[in-house]
Protein backbone atom coordinates (compact mmCIF):
# COMPACT_ATOMS: atom_id res chain seq x y z
CA UNK A 1 0.00 0.00 0.00
CA UNK A 2 1.43 3.31 -1.09
CA UNK A 3 0.10 6.31 0.80
CA UNK A 4 0.68 10.02 0.40
CA UNK A 5 -0.26 12.53 3.12
CA UNK A 6 -0.50 16.29 2.62
CA UNK A 7 2.38 16.18 0.19
CA UNK A 8 3.58 19.62 -0.89
CA UNK A 9 6.32 20.39 -3.40
CA UNK A 10 7.62 23.82 -4.32
CA UNK A 11 9.92 24.79 -7.16
CA UNK A 12 11.11 28.08 -5.70
CA UNK A 13 8.03 30.31 -5.52
CA UNK A 14 5.89 27.95 -7.60
CA UNK A 15 3.83 25.41 -5.71
CA UNK A 16 3.58 22.36 -7.97
CA UNK A 17 2.01 19.93 -5.51
CA UNK A 18 -0.38 21.39 -2.95
CA UNK A 19 -1.25 19.25 0.09
CA UNK A 20 -2.06 16.15 -1.92
CA UNK A 21 -3.25 13.06 -0.08
CA UNK A 22 -4.07 9.74 -1.72
CA UNK A 23 -3.83 6.01 -1.32
CA UNK A 24 -2.85 3.34 -3.81
CA UNK A 25 -4.03 -0.09 -2.67
CA UNK A 26 -2.32 -3.22 -3.99
CA UNK A 27 -3.89 -5.08 -6.86
CA UNK A 28 -5.55 -1.96 -8.24
CA UNK A 29 -4.98 0.88 -10.67
CA UNK A 30 -5.35 4.46 -9.44
CA UNK A 31 -5.39 7.10 -12.17
CA UNK A 32 -4.09 10.64 -11.59
CA UNK A 33 -5.56 12.96 -14.17
CA UNK A 34 -5.55 16.62 -15.03
CA UNK A 35 -4.39 19.18 -17.53
CA UNK A 36 -0.79 20.05 -18.39
CA UNK A 37 0.98 21.63 -15.46
CA UNK A 38 -1.52 20.28 -12.97
CA UNK A 39 1.29 18.73 -10.97
CA UNK A 40 0.90 15.09 -11.93
CA UNK A 41 4.51 14.49 -12.94
CA UNK A 42 5.78 16.51 -9.99
CA UNK A 43 3.70 14.29 -7.73
CA UNK A 44 5.31 11.13 -9.06
CA UNK A 45 8.79 12.63 -8.92
CA UNK A 46 8.25 13.63 -5.31
CA UNK A 47 7.00 10.18 -4.35
CA UNK A 48 10.09 8.47 -5.77
CA UNK A 49 12.42 11.04 -4.27
CA UNK A 50 13.69 12.78 -7.41
CA UNK A 51 12.36 15.99 -5.90
CA UNK A 52 12.24 16.82 -2.20
CA UNK A 53 8.86 17.81 -0.78
CA UNK A 54 8.45 20.92 1.34
CA UNK A 55 5.90 19.22 3.53
CA UNK A 56 3.95 16.00 3.90
CA UNK A 57 4.74 12.30 4.02
CA UNK A 58 5.00 9.33 1.73
CA UNK A 59 4.61 5.90 3.30
CA UNK A 60 4.96 2.50 1.71
CA UNK A 61 3.63 -0.49 3.64
CA UNK A 62 3.76 1.60 6.76
CA UNK A 63 7.35 2.74 6.34
CA UNK A 64 7.99 6.47 5.99
CA UNK A 65 10.05 6.83 2.82
CA UNK A 66 9.78 10.61 2.44
CA UNK A 67 13.39 11.48 3.19
CA UNK A 68 15.07 8.49 1.57
CA UNK A 69 17.34 8.68 -1.46
CA UNK A 70 15.88 7.68 -4.79
CA UNK A 71 17.90 4.47 -4.98
CA UNK A 72 16.72 3.43 -1.54
CA UNK A 73 13.06 4.14 -2.31
CA UNK A 74 13.32 2.05 -5.46
CA UNK A 75 14.91 -0.77 -3.49
CA UNK A 76 11.83 -0.88 -1.28
CA UNK A 77 9.97 -2.24 -4.27
CA UNK A 78 8.65 0.87 -5.96
CA UNK A 79 9.20 1.11 -9.71
CA UNK A 80 8.86 4.40 -11.60
CA UNK A 81 8.52 4.47 -15.36
CA UNK A 82 9.33 8.12 -16.04
CA UNK A 83 7.90 10.57 -18.51
CA UNK A 84 9.44 9.95 -21.90
CA UNK A 85 10.16 6.30 -21.10
CA UNK A 86 13.69 6.85 -19.73
CA UNK A 87 15.18 4.23 -21.98
CA UNK A 88 18.99 4.32 -21.89
CA UNK A 89 19.62 4.58 -25.61
CA UNK A 90 23.35 3.92 -25.40
CA UNK A 91 22.77 0.46 -23.95
CA UNK A 92 21.23 -2.56 -25.68
CA UNK A 93 17.72 -3.78 -24.95
CA UNK A 94 19.07 -6.74 -22.99
CA UNK A 95 21.39 -4.46 -20.97
CA UNK A 96 18.51 -2.15 -20.14
CA UNK A 97 16.52 -5.12 -18.85
CA UNK A 98 19.41 -6.53 -16.88
CA UNK A 99 20.02 -3.15 -15.30
CA UNK A 100 16.49 -3.05 -13.97
CA UNK A 101 16.96 -6.18 -11.92
CA UNK A 102 20.51 -5.75 -10.61
CA UNK A 103 19.54 -4.59 -7.17
CA UNK A 104 17.18 -7.55 -6.80
CA UNK A 105 19.98 -10.02 -7.44
CA UNK A 106 18.82 -13.56 -7.66
CA UNK A 107 15.19 -12.71 -7.08
CA UNK A 108 14.90 -10.63 -10.18
CA UNK A 109 12.60 -11.88 -12.89
CA UNK A 110 14.46 -13.84 -15.56
CA UNK A 111 14.47 -12.07 -18.89
CA UNK A 112 12.48 -14.91 -20.44
CA UNK A 113 9.46 -13.78 -18.41
CA UNK A 114 9.73 -10.30 -19.85
CA UNK A 115 10.24 -11.63 -23.37
CA UNK A 116 7.08 -13.67 -22.96
CA UNK A 117 5.18 -10.48 -22.21
CA UNK A 118 6.94 -8.52 -24.96
CA UNK A 119 8.18 -10.84 -27.71
CA UNK A 120 9.25 -7.83 -29.76
CA UNK A 121 11.94 -7.10 -27.17
CA UNK A 122 13.47 -10.54 -27.58
CA UNK A 123 13.83 -9.91 -31.29
CA UNK A 124 15.72 -6.69 -30.61
CA UNK A 125 17.61 -7.96 -27.56
CA UNK A 126 21.14 -7.13 -28.70
CA UNK A 127 20.30 -3.98 -30.59
CA UNK A 128 20.92 -0.58 -29.03
CA UNK A 129 17.81 0.79 -27.42
CA UNK A 130 18.09 3.84 -29.66
CA UNK A 131 16.82 1.72 -32.52
CA UNK A 132 13.45 1.09 -30.86
CA UNK A 133 10.24 2.85 -31.84
CA UNK A 134 8.18 4.78 -29.30
CA UNK A 135 5.90 1.86 -28.59
CA UNK A 136 8.79 -0.57 -28.26
CA UNK A 137 10.53 1.82 -25.86
CA UNK A 138 7.40 1.91 -23.73
CA UNK A 139 7.40 -1.86 -23.60
CA UNK A 140 11.08 -1.84 -22.69
CA UNK A 141 10.68 0.62 -19.86
CA UNK A 142 7.70 -1.26 -18.42
CA UNK A 143 9.51 -4.56 -18.85
CA UNK A 144 12.58 -3.08 -17.18
CA UNK A 145 10.48 -1.96 -14.24
CA UNK A 146 8.98 -5.44 -13.90
CA UNK A 147 12.35 -7.22 -13.80
CA UNK A 148 12.83 -5.99 -10.25
CA UNK A 149 9.52 -7.61 -9.22
CA UNK A 150 8.15 -4.38 -7.77
CA UNK A 151 5.14 -4.16 -5.53
CA UNK A 152 4.19 -0.66 -6.63
CA UNK A 153 4.37 0.70 -10.17
CA UNK A 154 4.27 4.40 -11.01
CA UNK A 155 3.65 5.18 -14.67
CA UNK A 156 4.07 8.69 -16.06
CA UNK A 157 2.02 9.24 -19.23
CA UNK A 158 2.70 5.89 -20.90
CA UNK A 159 0.40 6.77 -23.79
CA UNK A 160 2.41 9.82 -24.84
CA UNK A 161 3.14 9.83 -28.54
CA UNK A 162 1.71 6.37 -29.16
CA UNK A 163 -0.90 5.25 -31.69
CA UNK A 164 -4.35 4.58 -30.20
CA UNK A 165 -4.25 0.83 -30.78
CA UNK A 166 -0.93 0.57 -28.99
CA UNK A 167 -2.25 2.69 -26.16
CA UNK A 168 -5.17 0.31 -25.71
CA UNK A 169 -2.79 -2.67 -25.66
CA UNK A 170 -0.55 -1.11 -23.07
CA UNK A 171 -3.43 -0.03 -20.87
CA UNK A 172 -4.97 -3.49 -20.83
CA UNK A 173 -1.53 -4.92 -20.07
CA UNK A 174 -1.17 -2.59 -17.11
CA UNK A 175 -4.56 -3.69 -15.79
CA UNK A 176 -3.60 -7.34 -16.22
CA UNK A 177 -0.32 -6.80 -14.35
CA UNK A 178 -2.08 -5.05 -11.50
CA UNK A 179 -4.50 -7.95 -11.15
CA UNK A 180 -2.13 -10.88 -11.60
CA UNK A 181 0.94 -9.49 -9.79
CA UNK A 182 -1.02 -7.68 -7.09
CA UNK A 183 0.69 -4.43 -7.99
CA UNK A 184 -0.28 -1.04 -6.57
CA UNK A 185 -0.37 0.96 -9.78
CA UNK A 186 -0.40 4.76 -9.85
CA UNK A 187 -1.10 5.84 -13.40
CA UNK A 188 -0.55 9.46 -14.42
CA UNK A 189 -2.23 10.22 -17.71
CA UNK A 190 -3.49 12.99 -19.91
CA UNK A 191 -5.49 10.50 -21.92
CA UNK A 192 -8.17 10.38 -19.24
CA UNK A 193 -10.59 8.19 -21.15
CA UNK A 194 -8.26 5.25 -21.64
CA UNK A 195 -6.84 5.64 -18.13
CA UNK A 196 -10.27 5.54 -16.52
CA UNK A 197 -11.21 2.46 -18.54
CA UNK A 198 -8.71 0.35 -16.61
CA UNK A 199 -8.70 2.08 -13.21
CA UNK A 200 -10.54 1.43 -10.04
CA UNK A 201 -10.04 4.93 -8.73
CA UNK A 202 -9.68 8.34 -10.35
CA UNK A 203 -7.98 11.38 -8.84
CA UNK A 204 -8.07 14.74 -10.56
CA UNK A 205 -5.42 17.36 -9.93
CA UNK A 206 -5.73 21.03 -10.75
CA UNK A 207 -2.97 23.54 -9.99
CA UNK A 208 -1.38 20.98 -7.69
CA UNK A 209 -4.50 20.34 -5.63
CA UNK A 210 -6.82 17.35 -5.52
CA UNK A 211 -10.20 18.38 -6.83
CA UNK A 212 -11.72 14.93 -7.07
CA UNK A 213 -10.94 11.54 -5.51
CA UNK A 214 -13.69 9.10 -6.46
CA UNK A 215 -14.16 5.73 -8.07
CA UNK A 216 -13.30 5.62 -11.74
CA UNK A 217 -16.85 4.81 -12.69
CA UNK A 218 -18.21 7.84 -10.85
CA UNK A 219 -15.58 10.05 -12.45
CA UNK A 220 -16.32 8.79 -15.93
CA UNK A 221 -20.03 9.48 -15.33
CA UNK A 222 -19.59 12.97 -13.87
CA UNK A 223 -20.00 15.24 -16.88
CA UNK A 224 -19.21 18.45 -15.05
CA UNK A 225 -15.86 17.21 -13.79
CA UNK A 226 -15.00 15.64 -17.09
CA UNK A 227 -15.70 18.83 -19.02
CA UNK A 228 -13.94 21.06 -16.50
CA UNK A 229 -10.73 19.14 -16.04
CA UNK A 230 -10.44 16.22 -18.41
CA UNK A 231 -11.45 17.61 -21.73
CA UNK A 232 -14.22 15.21 -22.68
Amino acid at each position, binding site marked *: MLAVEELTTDYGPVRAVDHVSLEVPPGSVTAVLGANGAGKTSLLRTITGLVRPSAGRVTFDGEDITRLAVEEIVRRGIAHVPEGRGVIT*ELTVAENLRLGGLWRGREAAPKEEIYELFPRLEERADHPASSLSGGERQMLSIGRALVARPRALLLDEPSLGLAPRLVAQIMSLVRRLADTLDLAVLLVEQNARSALSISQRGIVLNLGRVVADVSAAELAADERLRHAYLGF
Partner: protein
Amino acid sequence: MTKFIDLTLNGISTGAIYAAVALALVLIWRATRIVNFAQGAMLMVTTFIAYAVINATGSYVLGFVVALASGFVLGAVIERVLIRPVEGGPPLNAVIITLGLYTLLVAAAGMIWGNTPKSFPAAFSIRGYEVGGTRLLFAPNDTFIVVVVIAVALGLALLFRATTLGLQLRAAAFKPEVARLLGVRVGRMFTLGWALAAVAGSLAGILVAPSIFVGPNNFDPILISGFVAAVIGGLDSPPGAVVGGLLLGLALSYVSGYEGSSLVPLAALVILVLVLMVRPTGLFSATKERRV
Protein backbone atom coordinates in the same frame (compact mmCIF):
# COMPACT_ATOMS: atom_id res chain seq x y z
CA MET B 1 64.85 7.47 -43.03
CA THR B 2 66.13 6.41 -39.63
CA LYS B 3 65.02 9.75 -38.29
CA PHE B 4 61.49 9.11 -39.51
CA ILE B 5 61.42 5.66 -37.91
CA ASP B 6 62.85 7.06 -34.69
CA LEU B 7 60.26 9.81 -34.60
CA THR B 8 57.45 7.38 -35.33
CA LEU B 9 58.50 5.00 -32.58
CA ASN B 10 59.01 7.88 -30.19
CA GLY B 11 55.58 9.16 -31.15
CA ILE B 12 53.99 5.85 -30.29
CA SER B 13 55.65 5.83 -26.90
CA THR B 14 54.66 9.39 -25.97
CA GLY B 15 51.31 8.78 -27.59
CA ALA B 16 50.65 5.94 -25.18
CA ILE B 17 51.18 8.34 -22.30
CA TYR B 18 48.88 10.95 -23.80
CA ALA B 19 46.36 8.16 -24.31
CA ALA B 20 46.44 7.31 -20.61
CA VAL B 21 45.83 10.93 -19.60
CA ALA B 22 43.14 11.27 -22.26
CA LEU B 23 41.50 8.12 -20.92
CA ALA B 24 41.41 9.64 -17.44
CA LEU B 25 39.81 12.84 -18.75
CA VAL B 26 37.29 10.92 -20.85
CA LEU B 27 36.21 8.67 -17.98
CA ILE B 28 35.58 11.66 -15.77
CA TRP B 29 33.79 13.57 -18.52
CA ARG B 30 31.54 10.61 -19.26
CA ALA B 31 30.70 10.06 -15.63
CA THR B 32 30.23 13.60 -14.37
CA ARG B 33 30.36 15.89 -17.42
CA ILE B 34 33.35 17.73 -15.98
CA VAL B 35 36.75 18.39 -17.54
CA ASN B 36 39.20 17.67 -14.76
CA PHE B 37 41.75 20.45 -15.11
CA ALA B 38 43.42 19.12 -11.99
CA GLN B 39 44.25 15.79 -13.64
CA GLY B 40 47.85 16.78 -14.35
CA ALA B 41 48.36 17.92 -10.78
CA MET B 42 46.74 14.76 -9.41
CA LEU B 43 49.03 12.49 -11.34
CA MET B 44 51.95 14.66 -10.32
CA VAL B 45 51.13 14.07 -6.67
CA THR B 46 50.82 10.30 -7.06
CA THR B 47 54.12 10.24 -8.95
CA PHE B 48 55.75 12.12 -6.07
CA ILE B 49 54.30 9.59 -3.65
CA ALA B 50 55.77 6.81 -5.77
CA TYR B 51 59.07 8.67 -5.77
CA ALA B 52 59.05 8.78 -1.97
CA VAL B 53 58.24 5.07 -1.77
CA ILE B 54 60.96 4.10 -4.24
CA ASN B 55 63.49 6.19 -2.35
CA ALA B 56 62.51 4.65 0.95
CA THR B 57 62.27 1.04 -0.15
CA GLY B 58 64.33 0.83 -3.33
CA SER B 59 61.57 -1.16 -5.02
CA TYR B 60 60.19 0.15 -8.32
CA VAL B 61 57.38 -2.37 -8.31
CA LEU B 62 56.17 -1.19 -4.92
CA GLY B 63 56.35 2.40 -6.09
CA PHE B 64 54.35 1.52 -9.19
CA VAL B 65 51.64 -0.20 -7.20
CA VAL B 66 51.49 2.60 -4.63
CA ALA B 67 51.19 5.18 -7.42
CA LEU B 68 48.12 3.44 -8.83
CA ALA B 69 46.60 2.76 -5.43
CA SER B 70 47.08 6.30 -4.19
CA GLY B 71 45.59 7.51 -7.45
CA PHE B 72 42.50 5.41 -6.79
CA VAL B 73 42.10 6.85 -3.31
CA LEU B 74 42.87 10.41 -4.37
CA GLY B 75 40.33 10.29 -7.17
CA ALA B 76 37.64 8.89 -4.91
CA VAL B 77 38.24 11.42 -2.15
CA ILE B 78 38.33 14.38 -4.50
CA GLU B 79 35.07 13.40 -6.14
CA ARG B 80 33.28 12.84 -2.86
CA VAL B 81 34.50 15.99 -1.12
CA LEU B 82 35.10 18.62 -3.77
CA ILE B 83 33.24 17.61 -6.89
CA ARG B 84 29.98 16.26 -5.49
CA PRO B 85 28.80 19.77 -4.47
CA VAL B 86 29.21 21.13 -8.00
CA GLU B 87 28.00 18.18 -10.05
CA GLY B 88 25.03 19.14 -12.15
CA GLY B 89 25.51 22.85 -11.55
CA PRO B 90 26.83 25.54 -13.90
CA PRO B 91 29.98 24.34 -15.71
CA LEU B 92 31.92 27.41 -14.56
CA ASN B 93 31.80 26.21 -10.96
CA ALA B 94 33.34 22.86 -11.80
CA VAL B 95 36.00 24.53 -13.95
CA ILE B 96 36.98 26.82 -11.11
CA ILE B 97 37.02 24.08 -8.50
CA THR B 98 39.30 21.91 -10.60
CA LEU B 99 41.55 24.90 -11.29
CA GLY B 100 41.63 25.73 -7.59
CA LEU B 101 42.48 22.12 -6.85
CA TYR B 102 45.24 22.25 -9.46
CA THR B 103 46.74 25.32 -7.80
CA LEU B 104 46.44 23.80 -4.34
CA LEU B 105 48.02 20.48 -5.33
CA VAL B 106 50.94 22.16 -7.11
CA ALA B 107 51.59 24.36 -4.10
CA ALA B 108 51.24 21.47 -1.66
CA ALA B 109 53.66 19.35 -3.65
CA GLY B 110 56.11 22.24 -3.62
CA MET B 111 55.76 22.57 0.11
CA ILE B 112 56.30 18.88 0.78
CA TRP B 113 58.91 17.96 -1.78
CA GLY B 114 60.33 21.30 -2.91
CA ASN B 115 60.37 22.83 -6.34
CA THR B 116 63.66 21.40 -7.66
CA PRO B 117 62.89 18.71 -10.23
CA LYS B 118 64.03 15.25 -9.25
CA SER B 119 65.08 12.38 -11.42
CA PHE B 120 62.90 9.32 -11.51
CA PRO B 121 64.01 5.79 -12.36
CA ALA B 122 62.63 3.95 -15.34
CA ALA B 123 61.22 0.44 -15.09
CA PHE B 124 63.44 -0.98 -17.79
CA SER B 125 66.48 -0.02 -19.77
CA ILE B 126 66.25 3.23 -21.68
CA ARG B 127 68.95 2.27 -24.10
CA GLY B 128 67.41 1.90 -27.51
CA TYR B 129 67.14 -1.41 -29.28
CA GLU B 130 69.91 -2.20 -31.72
CA VAL B 131 68.62 -3.17 -35.11
CA GLY B 132 71.07 -4.03 -37.86
CA GLY B 133 73.84 -1.91 -36.45
CA THR B 134 71.81 1.26 -35.73
CA ARG B 135 70.53 2.13 -32.32
CA LEU B 136 66.86 3.08 -32.40
CA LEU B 137 65.30 5.74 -30.24
CA PHE B 138 62.94 3.09 -28.91
CA ALA B 139 64.00 1.21 -25.79
CA PRO B 140 62.70 -1.68 -23.68
CA ASN B 141 61.18 0.89 -21.36
CA ASP B 142 59.14 2.28 -24.26
CA THR B 143 57.84 -1.20 -25.01
CA PHE B 144 56.83 -1.42 -21.37
CA ILE B 145 55.00 1.90 -21.60
CA VAL B 146 53.02 0.92 -24.68
CA VAL B 147 52.19 -2.56 -23.38
CA VAL B 148 51.06 -1.35 -19.96
CA VAL B 149 48.87 1.42 -21.31
CA ILE B 150 47.20 -0.90 -23.80
CA ALA B 151 46.71 -3.51 -21.09
CA VAL B 152 45.10 -0.99 -18.75
CA ALA B 153 42.91 0.37 -21.54
CA LEU B 154 41.76 -3.13 -22.42
CA GLY B 155 41.21 -3.93 -18.77
CA LEU B 156 39.01 -0.89 -18.35
CA ALA B 157 37.13 -1.70 -21.54
CA LEU B 158 36.51 -5.21 -20.23
CA LEU B 159 35.31 -3.83 -16.93
CA PHE B 160 32.86 -1.48 -18.57
CA ARG B 161 31.49 -3.81 -21.23
CA ALA B 162 31.47 -7.21 -19.63
CA THR B 163 30.76 -6.79 -15.94
CA THR B 164 27.72 -5.87 -13.93
CA LEU B 165 29.65 -3.08 -12.26
CA GLY B 166 30.57 -1.74 -15.64
CA LEU B 167 26.93 -1.77 -16.68
CA GLN B 168 26.07 0.29 -13.63
CA LEU B 169 28.94 2.68 -14.29
CA ARG B 170 27.80 3.19 -17.86
CA ALA B 171 24.16 3.65 -16.89
CA ALA B 172 25.12 6.19 -14.23
CA ALA B 173 27.23 8.04 -16.80
CA PHE B 174 24.66 8.06 -19.60
CA LYS B 175 21.46 8.76 -17.70
CA PRO B 176 22.03 9.22 -13.97
CA GLU B 177 18.41 10.00 -13.13
CA VAL B 178 17.06 6.93 -14.88
CA ALA B 179 19.81 4.82 -13.31
CA ARG B 180 18.68 6.05 -9.89
CA LEU B 181 15.15 4.96 -10.69
CA LEU B 182 16.54 1.50 -11.38
CA GLY B 183 18.15 1.27 -7.98
CA VAL B 184 21.71 2.03 -9.10
CA ARG B 185 23.68 3.85 -6.41
CA VAL B 186 24.72 6.59 -8.78
CA GLY B 187 26.77 8.57 -6.26
CA ARG B 188 29.01 5.58 -5.63
CA MET B 189 29.35 5.03 -9.35
CA PHE B 190 30.57 8.61 -9.83
CA THR B 191 33.13 8.15 -7.07
CA LEU B 192 34.29 4.90 -8.61
CA GLY B 193 34.49 6.54 -12.02
CA TRP B 194 36.77 9.26 -10.68
CA ALA B 195 38.87 6.67 -8.84
CA LEU B 196 39.39 4.59 -12.00
CA ALA B 197 40.16 7.69 -14.01
CA ALA B 198 42.74 8.75 -11.47
CA VAL B 199 44.37 5.32 -11.77
CA ALA B 200 44.76 5.83 -15.50
CA GLY B 201 46.21 9.26 -14.80
CA SER B 202 48.65 7.95 -12.21
CA LEU B 203 49.77 5.37 -14.72
CA ALA B 204 50.62 8.12 -17.18
CA GLY B 205 52.47 10.01 -14.48
CA ILE B 206 54.73 7.20 -13.42
CA LEU B 207 55.42 6.18 -17.01
CA VAL B 208 56.40 9.66 -18.17
CA ALA B 209 58.36 10.60 -15.04
CA PRO B 210 61.77 9.22 -16.11
CA SER B 211 61.84 11.44 -19.21
CA ILE B 212 60.69 14.75 -17.74
CA PHE B 213 62.03 14.93 -14.18
CA VAL B 214 59.53 15.19 -11.40
CA GLY B 215 58.60 18.69 -10.30
CA PRO B 216 55.34 20.39 -9.29
CA ASN B 217 54.92 22.14 -12.64
CA ASN B 218 56.54 19.61 -14.93
CA PHE B 219 53.36 17.71 -15.64
CA ASP B 220 51.34 20.66 -16.99
CA PRO B 221 52.12 19.99 -20.67
CA ILE B 222 50.88 16.42 -20.20
CA LEU B 223 47.49 17.69 -19.16
CA ILE B 224 47.22 19.88 -22.22
CA SER B 225 48.29 17.06 -24.52
CA GLY B 226 45.92 14.67 -22.81
CA PHE B 227 43.09 17.17 -23.26
CA VAL B 228 43.87 17.66 -26.95
CA ALA B 229 44.05 13.89 -27.42
CA ALA B 230 40.71 13.45 -25.66
CA VAL B 231 39.13 16.11 -27.86
CA ILE B 232 40.55 14.48 -30.99
CA GLY B 233 39.06 11.15 -30.07
CA GLY B 234 35.84 12.56 -28.68
CA LEU B 235 35.41 13.51 -25.04
CA ASP B 236 32.96 10.70 -24.40
CA SER B 237 34.79 7.89 -26.19
CA PRO B 238 37.41 5.81 -24.33
CA PRO B 239 38.64 4.06 -27.50
CA GLY B 240 38.77 7.51 -29.05
CA ALA B 241 41.02 8.64 -26.21
CA VAL B 242 43.51 5.90 -27.00
CA VAL B 243 43.49 6.56 -30.72
CA GLY B 244 43.59 10.31 -30.16
CA GLY B 245 46.56 9.89 -27.86
CA LEU B 246 48.51 7.86 -30.39
CA LEU B 247 47.70 10.24 -33.24
CA LEU B 248 48.70 13.25 -31.20
CA GLY B 249 51.88 11.54 -30.02
CA LEU B 250 52.90 10.90 -33.59
CA ALA B 251 52.01 14.40 -34.76
CA LEU B 252 53.89 16.14 -31.96
CA SER B 253 56.85 13.83 -32.38
CA TYR B 254 57.17 14.82 -36.00
CA VAL B 255 56.83 18.51 -35.14
CA SER B 256 59.45 18.22 -32.45
CA GLY B 257 61.80 16.30 -34.69
CA TYR B 258 61.52 18.46 -37.79
CA GLU B 259 60.72 21.88 -36.33
CA GLY B 260 62.13 21.89 -32.84
CA SER B 261 60.72 21.04 -29.45
CA SER B 262 59.85 24.62 -28.51
CA LEU B 263 57.06 24.60 -31.07
CA VAL B 264 55.33 21.60 -29.54
CA PRO B 265 52.91 23.49 -27.25
CA LEU B 266 51.93 25.75 -30.13
CA ALA B 267 51.48 22.75 -32.42
CA ALA B 268 49.21 21.13 -29.85
CA LEU B 269 47.17 24.33 -29.77
CA VAL B 270 46.91 24.48 -33.56
CA ILE B 271 45.83 20.83 -33.72
CA LEU B 272 43.24 21.47 -31.02
CA VAL B 273 41.77 24.45 -32.82
CA LEU B 274 41.71 22.56 -36.14
CA VAL B 275 39.85 19.63 -34.61
CA LEU B 276 37.41 21.93 -32.83
CA MET B 277 36.69 23.82 -36.03
CA VAL B 278 36.35 20.83 -38.31
CA ARG B 279 34.89 18.12 -36.12
CA PRO B 280 34.21 19.44 -32.62
CA THR B 281 32.73 16.25 -31.27
CA GLY B 282 35.87 14.30 -32.10
CA LEU B 283 36.55 11.37 -34.35
CA PHE B 284 34.66 8.69 -32.47
CA SER B 285 31.96 10.48 -30.60
CA ALA B 286 28.43 9.19 -30.75
CA THR B 287 26.83 12.50 -29.81
CA LYS B 288 25.88 14.91 -32.49
CA GLU B 289 26.56 18.60 -32.43
CA ARG B 290 23.72 20.67 -31.11
CA ARG B 291 22.04 22.39 -34.00
CA VAL B 292 18.95 24.50 -33.82
